[in-house]
């Protein structure tokens, strides 16, 4: 599995979103039942919103070329997100590149964790 380039590092702030797919049944008096369907570790995929601010055009091309290649082969990739201890498997459903200054670019991307070998 391909690894996402480690340089340049994304700029802060980085947003990490978790929303476990837990089934909750709760009616008005308040006591609730919670249960997972499927392995719990796989019901909590992480979603990272990453930004590479003001990187050079060639750096952004390298990152974008990687994401384009993953869009073509449909494969997931490994990446160690900022402040994470280990790498995870991700897909990148969408990303944006904005070119605000000549020769500089800002890339924003959403990485969603997937569970596949």
């Amino acid at each position, binding site marked *: 599995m391909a690894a996402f380039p480690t340089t340049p590092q994304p700029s802060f702030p980085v947003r990490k979103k978790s929303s476990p797919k837990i089934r909750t049944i709760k009616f008005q008096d308040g006591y609730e039942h*919670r*249960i*997972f*369907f*499927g*392995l*719990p*570790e*796989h*019901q909590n995929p992480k979603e990272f919103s990453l930004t590479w601010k003001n990187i050079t055009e060639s750096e952004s091309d390298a990152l974008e070329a990687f994401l384009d290649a993953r869009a073509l082969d449909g494969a997931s990739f490994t990446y160690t997100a900022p402040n994470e201890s280990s790498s995870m*498997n991700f897909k990148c459903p969408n990303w944006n590149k904005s070119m605000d200054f000549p020769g500089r670019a800002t890339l924003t991307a959403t990485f969603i964790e997937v*569970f*596949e*070998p």
Partner: protein
Amino acid sequence: MTINHDPVFSEIQKINPSAIIELFTLELVVGQHIATGNPQSLPTKYYFHSGSNLNANGVIVWATELYQRFPIQASGFKYQRGKIPRPRVQISNAFGNMSAILESVNSITPGNDLTNATFTRIKTMARFLDAVNFPGNSNPYGTPDPTAEFKRQVYTVDRKSIENRDIVEFELTGSIDMAGVKAPGRQCTRSLFPSIGTFNQ
């Protein structure tokens, strides 16, 4: 095959029970879906689970059987007003796997579309899964128990309701609810067995 309901029933009554794991099998009939005698040694039983395990995201292993990672969901198992439920199962056809199976089945019995194949839903819990599903080959949730299952739901494929590029959908039915199947299978009259009707004195 032994199935013991007690471990799952006591687990599900806890405050925070272990996660429910849903597994599916599709069993084909040799002679109807596969050429008689299975000369090509095709698989007669397919195992599906809509997820991967925690050991490098491999396939889920339940009672030493491998359940392939495959998008699959089934619904409509509820009993209501005395009718036998007709659940629907949707299986991904994005890679054409199901169409390939259907094509091979229809080459044996034209127009069969897997009718009469046996579809089973197995439900167990994460804590009873085989140790091989977890990193370090040890189940962190509890002790593996290959006999701990909810009641198996065994249905027969009645018809293929959808086949497109995305999914294949089957409508399932109870084994006595098939078209052309009657219960009892044979009616017995006094001409066959003279003492019929003489017992209830």
